[in-house]
């Protein structure tokens, strides 16, 4: 064996070890959460809010966090959807110059990179200025800001793929820009748009740093937009910092629920994308 093949083999082994390390650690994380969390899960956990002394080992469950998370993430996804779809349509050649589109895309990429804690701090300052305390609405707005860049870039990629011939043939028939955008482009881009929305929802439901100071924390299911709300990520954060192993088990169960939601959404996104792809004109 000459030096060239020895070098190749050494690097092949190194690459294989790295791949094993990466896949091992990632599969390990999944396994830890699913096994530990699955063992700690019970029906009472998902059907009741915490009762007194829950954080010291008392009775109750984490229904408040589950409902809070669903409210926060769905509210943010709905708000982000309307803003994102407007921007994604606007980025097309019919509406704006390529220079302006470039500026908008760059700002979105920069917003995507901003750590979510900064959005949390920003929203908190605005809340202090307006004189409101932690509430569901503030959490929703903070999450909306995080979701907009993710959703818009996904929709933008989907809309870019729409063949120009399709649009041109609608213009020939006398349709205007908006009619084409809504009735043809959005329908054609539906698979990509759906997966962008679900991706953003998954990101939103898992984010803790931005809702820590904005949505706050509460043991009750929020009754209005101006109540503080708990969420699964903040619940996991608080529970896993507590010392007693019994209470930590609850953090594992909460993580199990959160991870299942995220995995289900990612699965749903793949299935729906395949399903909607049938209606596309190739």
């Amino acid at each position: 064996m000459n030096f060239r093949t020895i070098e190749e083999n050494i690097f092949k082994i190194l690459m294989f070890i790295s791949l094993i390390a990466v896949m091992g650690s990632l599969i390990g994380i999944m396994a830890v959460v699913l096994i530990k969390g699955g063992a700690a899960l019970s029906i009472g956990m998902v059907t009741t809010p915490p009762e007194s002394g829950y954080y010291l080992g008392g009775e109750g469950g984490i229904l408040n966090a589950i409902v809070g998370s669903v409210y926060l993430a769905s509210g943010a996804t709905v708000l982000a959807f309307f803003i994102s779809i407007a921007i994604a349509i606007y980025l097309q050649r019919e509406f704006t110059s390529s220079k302006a589109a470039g500026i908008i895309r760059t700002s979105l990429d920069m917003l995507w990179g901003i750590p979510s804690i900064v959005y949390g701090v920003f929203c908190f300052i605005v809340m202090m200025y307006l004189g409101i305390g932690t509430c569901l609405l503030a959490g929703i707005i903070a999450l909306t800001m995080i979701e907009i860049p993710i959703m818009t870039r996904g929709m933008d990629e989907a809309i870019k793929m729409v063949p120009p011939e399709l649009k041109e043939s609608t213009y020939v028939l006398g349709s205007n820009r908006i009619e084409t955008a809504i009735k043809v482009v959005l329908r054609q881009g539906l698979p990509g748009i759906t997966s962008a929305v679900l991706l953003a929802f998954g990101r939103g439901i898992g984010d803790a740093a931005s809702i820590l100071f904005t949505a706050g924390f509460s043991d009750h299911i929020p009754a209005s937009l101006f109540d503080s709300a708990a969420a699964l990520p903040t619940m996991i954060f608080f529970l896993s910092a507590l010392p007693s192993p019994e209470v930590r088990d609850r953090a594992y169960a909460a993580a199990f629920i959160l991870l299942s939601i995220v995995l289900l959404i990612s699965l749903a996104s793949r299935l729906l994308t395949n399903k909607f792809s049938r209606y596309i004109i190739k």
Partner: protein
Amino acid sequence: MKILRAFISMDSRRKKVVITTKLMLAASALVCALLFVIILILFSGSLPLLKQESIINILFSSFWNPGKGGFGLYPIIIGTVYVTGIAMLFSVPVSILSSIYIAEYAEGRVRNIIKSFVDVLAGVPSVVYGMCAIIVLVPLVRDYMAPFLGATSTGFCILTAGMILAIMVFPIIISICVDVFRAVPNELREVSYAIGATKWETIKHVVFRAAFPGVSSAVLLGFGRAFGETMAVCMVVGNIPRLSSSVFEPGTTLAAFIATNFGEMMSVPFYYSAMMLMALILILVVLIFNIIAKIIIRKSYGGGGR
């Protein structure tokens, strides 16, 4: 008035186009302005402290005691650099090597399975990573790694934070790198094989060189993510703003420190301002890295890009 009259005289289809276009323009302008508004508000929030003390003093003093007017951010900044540095040290070589394997050696089907698995993991919430670090990495560091190197540690330390961060950065770097390697045109590989290069020589001298700009921007994006990551780090780093002499000691990072201390002690003068300054440093560093990544992409692949 003239515009209004022109608008009223339009037919309803035309009106719809005008109104929706204006609304879409407003949404886009809002998003473009958001970045500047955030930076401006954070800057104006940190002004009181910046007026009181010089920025050099704040950045390089290690005296952190807000009650006594000590706002040295040096220990926090150094902690951030340590944690991020350890994370990148672990994750950059490992991610690049494994993405070469996935892109160049693995078969099509295996590649697709691994790639979709990695993409799913990029979406796993950071608290979940943090919790796994508490379950697995903290005892590992406390009971095996620290005694092995002759140190004592509670397990809640800079090394643990760096390790979990490295795992969190894997999916980001690998996902981009695999795409970048796959985008290298096959003709380049064929030319290299034709002049007698082995597969590894082709990868080393041709594929990697062609993919280098993309790989470096992936690393920069991963760095930006690691630098601003909050929850997972916050859960295992120990959160003590102190200069640490070894990686087995607790420390803190900018993001983790904001997460644990924001909202408390708002009555102490300038405390609030110091928090804003930290958030400002965080956003500016991440922005600079993202802009460099973007410029590299644009320079080497021409317009558009990621």
